[in-house]
């Protein structure tokens, strides 16, 4: 914060008055962790013995009223406020690039209601994903949002970043599951969106806050859809001769509305590099697919019959249930140490989504252009396709540079160049800058080009809602706090 020490102390005093002294943190040992999420950049800085930008102060409000008071105070002094969930974001969405207040939401962690008549649950935004899941499990339900970050992320984080889970192909992304939310606006007002998401009562404001990563307000409570725990949940794996055959099988399954729980198709490189390494599957060619269904046994059996016929019609080799089940049980292994990607490598998930017709041209263009452009760095590109829609599919594609520059500034420059090129191809080939990891700091500069003239809608809303730009500045295409 660009203020005097005296003023900072006065602000601290006010903050402690709102949330309590024990919930106002300034010690370096406490605030260091708040500068690091799962984005490559802050981790790289820490890995190399430095630190990313840190907040000036961290507060943990215990009620929506306290959230409101903190934000009103920040408005008064034009101090940045960055809402914090579980710290598992991969885009630097929580990075306090202009310092200020990080507002850790985890004390707002109560399940308010499980409504078995409506199949919904209402919970505070700071609840841990797994805690929410266990709470609804105890009542015989599931919140079918199973991201790899479930043990870390919060409900508010799911929604603020438009997150996606393993079984989104059947149950949808976070934004599809939410019915309504309570939000604290950048001026401190507490509002509620309409009670239901589908209506003809105007344009709807619910989705303004979903995916806004705190820029338009702070999510404090949400009502989301829950589902009955399924009678059966079954998986099967297939090996296709190539990625094209696998994509075509997936497309047909989606267009036939067979409602798979999951389709995860690995390109030829991932099939060998990842599936073999992590699952120990003896595959040395082709494109590996896991497909699963859940629900009532007889319905699942019928869905499987049709889907498997499609797979076999595309020359998919049935590898049986065992490998499919193995994938399900080990699906998070890919994201846990020691198997997760780590330094000194440079890496990133360049995910995008587009219609079926555009996916293969996009994939091949990105792979060719990136590998040629960064030949000297031996950039390696690979992908899997893990979140499917009736109209298209998401590419979870990644790059790896095993020997990047060790100088942090050089490394960052190279990292940004790779992203710039990848995003350019995503947009040029009909994709978007991201499918489910969000924008954060990493993609902030790409939001304006992504939207083009339409960005004025976002900008106009931001200027109206947050005239001093206190909420999560430096992200979503916006600059510093004014």
């Amino acid at each position, binding site marked *: 914060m660009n203020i005097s020490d005296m003023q900072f102390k006065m602000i601290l005093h006010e903050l402690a008055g709102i949330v309590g002294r024990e919930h106002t943190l300034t010690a*370096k*040992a406490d605030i260091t962790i708040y500068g690091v999420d799962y984005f490559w950049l802050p*981790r790289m800085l820490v890995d190399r013995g430095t630190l990313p930008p840190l907040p000036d102060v961290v507060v943990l409000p215990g009620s929506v009223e306290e959230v409101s008071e903190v934000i009103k105070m920040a408005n008064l002094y034009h101090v940045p406020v960055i809402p914090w969930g579980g710290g*598992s974001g991969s885009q630097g969405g929580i990075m306090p690039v202009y310092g200020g207040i990080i507002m850790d939401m985890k004390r707002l962690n109560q399940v308010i209601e499980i409504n078995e008549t409506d199949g919904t649950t209402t919970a505070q935004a*700071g609840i841990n994903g797994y805690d929410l899941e266990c709470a609804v499990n105890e009542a*015989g339900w599931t919140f079918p949002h199973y991201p790899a970050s479930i043990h*870390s992320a919060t409900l508010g984080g799911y929604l603020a970043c438009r997150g996606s889970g393993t079984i989104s192909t059947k149950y949808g992304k976070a934004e599809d599951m939410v019915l309504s939310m309570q939000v604290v606006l950048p001026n401190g007002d507490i509002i509620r969106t309409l009670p239901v998401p589908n209506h003809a009562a105007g344009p709807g404001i619910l989705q303004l806050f979903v995916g806004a990563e705190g820029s338009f307000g702070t999510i404090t409570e949400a009502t989301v859809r829950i589902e009955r725990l399924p009678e059966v949940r079954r998986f099967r794996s297939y090996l296709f001769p190539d990625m094209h055959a696998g994509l075509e099988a997936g497309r047909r399954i989606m267009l036939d509305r067979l409602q798979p729980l999951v389709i995860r198709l690995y390109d030829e490189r991932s099939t060998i590099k990842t599936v073999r390494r992590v699952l120990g599957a003896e595959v040395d060619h082709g494109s590996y697919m896991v497909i699963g269904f859940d629900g009532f046994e007889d319905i699942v059996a019928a869905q499987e019959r049709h889907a498997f016929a499609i797979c076999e019609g595309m020359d998919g080799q049935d590898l049986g249930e065992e490998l499919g089940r193995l994938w399900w049980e080990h699906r998070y292994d890919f994201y*846990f*140490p020691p198997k997760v990607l780590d330094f000194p490598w440079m890496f990133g998930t360049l995910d995008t989504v587009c219609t079926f017709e555009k996916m293969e041209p996009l994939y091949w263009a990105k792979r060719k252009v990136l590998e040629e452009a960064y030949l000297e760095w031996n950039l390696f590109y690979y992908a899997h396709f893990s979140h499917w829609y009736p109209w298209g599919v998401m590419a979870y594609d990644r790059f790896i540079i095993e020997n990047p520059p060790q100088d942090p500034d050089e490394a960052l420059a190279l990292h940004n160049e790779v992203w710039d090129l990848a995003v350019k191809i995503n947009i040029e080939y009909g994709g978007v800058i991201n499918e489910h990891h969000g924008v954060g700091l990493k993609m902030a500069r790409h939001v304006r080009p992504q939207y083009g003239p339409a960005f004025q809608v976002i900008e106009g809303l931001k200027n109206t809602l947050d005239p001093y730009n206190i909420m999560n500045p430096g992200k979503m295409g916006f600059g510093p706090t004014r």
Partner: protein
Amino acid sequence: MKHLEAHKRALYELRFSPMCKPATEVANLTQLESHTVRARTMMLWRIAWGIIDWGPREAELLYESTLDSISCAFDVFHYPIHQYMLDARADIWEAGLAPENVKQAVGRDAASEAGDCPESDILLLAGEVAQLGDDALLGPMEAALRAAAVDSATWVAPTGALSYALGAWDVAEAQARRVADGIHGGGARTVIADGPETAWALTRIYAALGIEMPDDVTVVLLSEVLADHLTPGERDLGVVFVHDSRPAYLISAEEPLHTAILPGYTEDELTFGKGPVYEAPRRLLGAMGAERVHGTWTRALAKTCGADDGLWLTHPDLAKGLAAQRLDHAEYLGATIVVTDSPLAAAWLAKHAAEREVEVKLLSELFV
């Protein structure tokens, strides 16, 4: 940092992983990010690799926690976080950097008296009772053993578990040596541990400290002895919630949550812990026809109530909060009675259940 040095590689692997469950038991209470496993491993990695030094707040953060019995459950590769914590605490202690409250707790432990070990084939070693400094729960334990027709003598002696957990391995070693010598001198062939922490000392800590127990001595939990020798009749106990104390996790043959916890399942209770330390209380309660409840909220399993690892001595407010969390959870599940095989846990939980409807009992008390 010689002890932490051994974990440099593991800490390096873990240092940024938010997937390794942010919550420790204390973090579940305070919700502070700096109390999470993620923060702790990043901090320990930076110290182990010489990036930062221990400062007063770092040392304090290390002790504002338990030995973390749950992080393994949320990490598919089961990194033993508790071991890194133990070794870091030993480094801190040896460097003289332990916070004052920790020094006081160790001083209290070091000053606690142990009489001579009685001569007996079967010895009830009351290490948890010694730590409590109150032998009110000894009576029910001895009575339960008599009801089980087990002829034993009792020795109230600090085992070293408390000081070991706080990093004071020099104090722990002296206490351990005294216990091992006492057992040897008293001729016991079977040592019955009064609770999981005593069993943890005898079966794990002494080996780590290089203290040899006599070869022909068998160590067994009191709950196991009772389960093997008692045939209790059916009783109306109410709705029972079994509290597995945190040290249970450290001595179990098959740790709770030995498979990684994944969403979308309802789990059988056995998934949350197999082996005598978990099964003996369940067997006894089953024989009594007790209606038991357990949560799928797995953070609550094998979770400290604040009485373990000396937290109740070093950070009583945090420990009180953990007890309240535990009791809240039991009440949420509909329990009317919380049963535990740990005297430390029983005493601490009972102290904080005074104003509640739910009752707390040491397992042995059910047979008196």
